[in-house]
């Protein structure tokens, strides 16, 4: 996989991952054993845009393309987040919320805040940085429909199998 230009779409065959912390059920080894074989999960929280994410133009949720960034690099790049949630780009693009909005995955230069300014991140693995766009709710549209996106992204990640990174 070659990195595209800033703002360019990723290939539909690519897979990206989002780093997050181990959830309670993962930490306590309860994962997959809640209730009658069903799954308790709180991964949706991993798909909430932070204040910094919202400031990007366009707003996007940081993810990494998995052939350019390893999970271990992802952990280091995100300050020790130890779980990778994998998302095939085609599946992300296939989501359409009840308002008819969709998501996209594009290349974005990795940036880190230094002295209140965002500067390029040149640490190992940052070359795979990209972002999911469309998660920022346009004004006057129902918040519910954007929470729907979060649950559906978490469902994709669960289907793919979350990866614990040592």
């Amino acid at each position, binding site marked *: 996989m070659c990195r595209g230009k800033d703002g360019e779409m990723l290939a539909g065959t690519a897979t990206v991952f989002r780093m997050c912390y181990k959830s309670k059920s993962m930490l306590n080894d309860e994962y997959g054993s*809640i209730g009658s074989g069903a799954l308790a999960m709180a991964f949706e929280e991993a798909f909430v845009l932070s204040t910094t994410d919202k400031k990007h133009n366009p707003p996007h949720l940081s993810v990494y393309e998995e052939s350019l960034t390893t999970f271990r690099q992802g952990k280091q790049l995100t300050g020790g987040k130890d779980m990778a949630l994998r998302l095939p780009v085609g599946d992300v693009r296939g989501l359409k919320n009840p308002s008819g909005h969709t998501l996209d995955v594009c290349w974005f230069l990795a940036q880190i805040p230094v002295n209140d300014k965002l500067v390029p991140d040149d640490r190992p693995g940052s070359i795979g940085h990209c972002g999911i766009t469309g998660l920022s709710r346009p004004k006057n549209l129902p918040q519910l429909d954007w929470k729907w996106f979060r649950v559906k992204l978490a469902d994709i990640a669960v289907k793919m199998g979350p990866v614990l990174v040592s």
Partner: protein
Amino acid sequence: MASMTETLPFLPKFYDPSHTQIWGLSELETAISDRYEEARRDILRYINQSRLTDVLWQSQLSNMSKKTLGYKQLSQIYIKLLQRQNKSAGIDTSCSISDRIEEPLISYLDEMVTKQLVSTEVQHTAIELWGKLEKASNFNLPEPDGLPGPECSFMLAFDDGTLHLEFEINKPNRVEAFFLNRDTDEMWEEDFEAHLDLSETLLEKIRLFRR
């Protein structure tokens, strides 16, 4: 009359299937966490204050000890028995009991606060909310999952594969609830303050997850 806390017996030996050994009192004391001990002392203090008879309490302990239960199950039953006997004695159950029920959740929150991933205020709101949800469902909920989010926020979530109910705590005392039925795409949300009574609609949703 001697203080009931002083006269209460310790639990006799019980069998922990995960360790396949019989635990005596000393091993039991070692195995249970400091937090659990603290909770237990609080509970005993509460019983004492509530003037329940020690006969009733000893009877409960005796019944429990006949069963082969691990620590986790035991601690949950401990609380549920208290809840039941308080109810039958016409005693209003205090939050100090209910908000200690889910030990793994509290431990997880403690860890997240230590790592500065969740603020103390958000932690308190999460625990208060969890206590309320448990009480509202007669202590019959599965364990929720939890995960820290941006800016020291926290999410609690119940999910049975079809139904999804999440509680997002972004600010102290403020909770955003969101429900999704994957089969029907029915959605519902509500913002509320954790210290206020839960709405009827929310109670209906949470009861869908009862075991």
